């Protein structure tokens, strides 16, 4: 009994109907279910007792973890975070209230509904068959395989064909020949297309390699130039030496920070893959997390020197810049990316991470609203025009007043960057507290991979071949 698999349904929409039509044939296969089969013809008064037996039976079936895991649709519907080890217990717990597939209550009701009009189980199951979808119910006892759809389908095909074969034999043969030729042609075309695709891919990869080499060369040149104090900037209006020096200093320090970060990440990667002991791993992870504090400090200094340089992400690659939030990454987004790849997480950890996601999201919203208010306020300040009939000195005074106010408002941008960075820092630290050492290590590696891929994407995008 435990080994018998049953196809619960072609798809979710057919669950109820299929479930109720599964049951009759299912029961007919196994000795335990026979009471149901016979009681199907029972009178109304015994229907309640049918319920009891059915519930017990379905209860047993639901509780069988092998049954759950063998339903392919179920595993895809289950939360993707769960690992194989946790799937049986956790998936069952998590989806028990929600899924209609294996929930005894709903199926019992459906079964009852199908019982009411048709006391005869066999005719009930036949009537349901038409609603099944693709599978062939004519031979229900053979429908024991959950994993392939082919078998019932094949039977259908065979049965249909046997009827048709007698009628049109000669025309079939020529049709077959045409079919063969078409198939051969199609296969040849596929092969040709695949070959061309492979060649294209090869050419493209070659191009990428060349671009990559060129890129590293350029990076080295820029690095050297920077160290020699050459003024490199992409915007035309950085004329003031003060802020220019600040920007230069920030860029240089950021480059140094990146190098150190890469070194720490490599150390972490080596430690993880060589299964270092927990104490040492904790040290390395702690170093990496603390190192993040440095970049937030750098950005604070940079924002003091030139708030727009930081806010607009001029120091980041284009792709990073495009998806920034107030001068950096969005903490809740980062958590969302990580959580699916950090399995297995305990219930407590899942709750903690979920709460952290929610809190950071709320804080992000609050800060975003503040930024919107700032923009609105600035707009109002600048848009307040004087009504013209005043003397020229009055107008100038107005203008100066407006500008002074606007200047004050711009000054608050630095505060927003600081709060956003603080949020990023706090989120990372809280995440570190929730996760185990190994999980934190993995998270840091994932974060690093994500950002370096984003940077690589920028490079690829900039180096992509463009048709003129």
């Amino acid at each position: 009994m435990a080994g018998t698999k049953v196809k619960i349904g072609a798809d979710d929409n057919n669950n109820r109907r299929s479930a109720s039509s599964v049951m009759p044939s299912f029961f007919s296969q196994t000795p335990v279910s026979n009471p149901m089969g016979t009681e199907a013809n029972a009178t109304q008064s015994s229907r309640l007792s049918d319920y009891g037996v059915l519930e017990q039976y379905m209860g047993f079936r639901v509780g069988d973890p092998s049954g759950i895991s063998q339903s392919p649709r179920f595993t895809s519907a289950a939360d993707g975070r769960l690992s194989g080890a946790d799937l049986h217990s956790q998936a069952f717990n998590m989806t028990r209230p929600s899924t209609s597939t294996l929930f005894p209550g709903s199926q019992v009701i459906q079964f009852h509904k199908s019982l009411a009009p048709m006391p005869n189980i066999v005719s009930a199951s036949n009537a349901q068959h038409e609603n099944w979808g693709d599978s062939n119910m004519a031979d229900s006892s053979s429908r024991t395989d959950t994993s392939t759809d082919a078998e019932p389908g094949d039977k259908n095909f065979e049965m249909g064909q046997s009827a048709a074969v007698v009628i049109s034999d000669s025309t079939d043969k020529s049709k077959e020949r045409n079919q063969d030729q078409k198939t051969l042609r199609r296969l040849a075309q596929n092969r040709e297309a695949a070959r061309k695709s492979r060649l294209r891919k090869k050419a493209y990869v070659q191009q990428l390699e060349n671009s990559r080499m060129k890129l590293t060369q350029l990076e080295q040149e820029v690095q050297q130039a920077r160290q020699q104090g050459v003024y490199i900037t992409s915007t035309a209006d950085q004329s003031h030496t003060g802020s220019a020096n600040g920007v230069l200093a920030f860029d240089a320090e950021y480059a140094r920070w990146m190098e150190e970060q890469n070194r720490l990440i490599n150390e972490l990667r080596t430690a993880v893959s060589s299964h270092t002991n927990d104490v040492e791993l904790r040290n390395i992870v702690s170093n990496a997390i603390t190192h993040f504090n440095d970049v937030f400090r750098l950005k604070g200094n940079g924002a003091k020197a030139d708030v727009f340089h930081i806010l607009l992400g001029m120091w980041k690659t284009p792709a990073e810049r495009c998806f920034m939030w107030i001068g950096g990454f969005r903490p809740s987004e980062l958590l969302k990316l990580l959580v699916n790849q950090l399995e297995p997480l305990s219930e407590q950890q899942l709750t903690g991470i979920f709460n952290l996601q929610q809190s950071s999201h709320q804080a992000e919203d609050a800060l975003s609203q503040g930024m919107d208010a700032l923009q609105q306020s600035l707009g109002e300040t600048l848009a307040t025009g004087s009504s013209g009939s005043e003397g020229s000195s009055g107008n100038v005074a107005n203008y100066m007043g407006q500008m002074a106010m606007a200047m004050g408002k711009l000054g608050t941008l630095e505060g927003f960057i600081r709060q956003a960075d603080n949020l990023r820092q706090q989120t990372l630290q809280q995440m570190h507290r929730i996760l185990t050492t190994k999980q934190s290590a993995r998270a840091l590696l994932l974060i690093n991979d994500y950002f370096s891929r984003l940077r690589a994407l920028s490079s690829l995008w900039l180096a992509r071949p463009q048709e003129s």
Partner: protein
Amino acid sequence: MDRIRDLASQKAAVIFTKSSCCMCHSTKALFYDLGASPAIHELDQDENGREMELALRVLGCNPIVPSVFIGGQFVGSTKDVISLHVDGSLKKMLINAKAIWF
């Protein structure tokens, strides 16, 4: 200082702000999002505003606004509030002070 203490103890959540301050706007937005209804006192609209500002500075609030009090206790400015929110403490404080229920 007395006025600050006085106002701070009148409601479970109290925020001292300035009407032009956008960071105050953010802090208010966060409290509203959590379901708290803080009492807002705008220092630039208050006749004793200057003295209150000085009192807050003495208390160590930096920047002076927004200045947050929960259950009559001084909590801090935006940075403190956000840090407390991220580790879950802010919600607990608000629940203890009966500013929110869950």
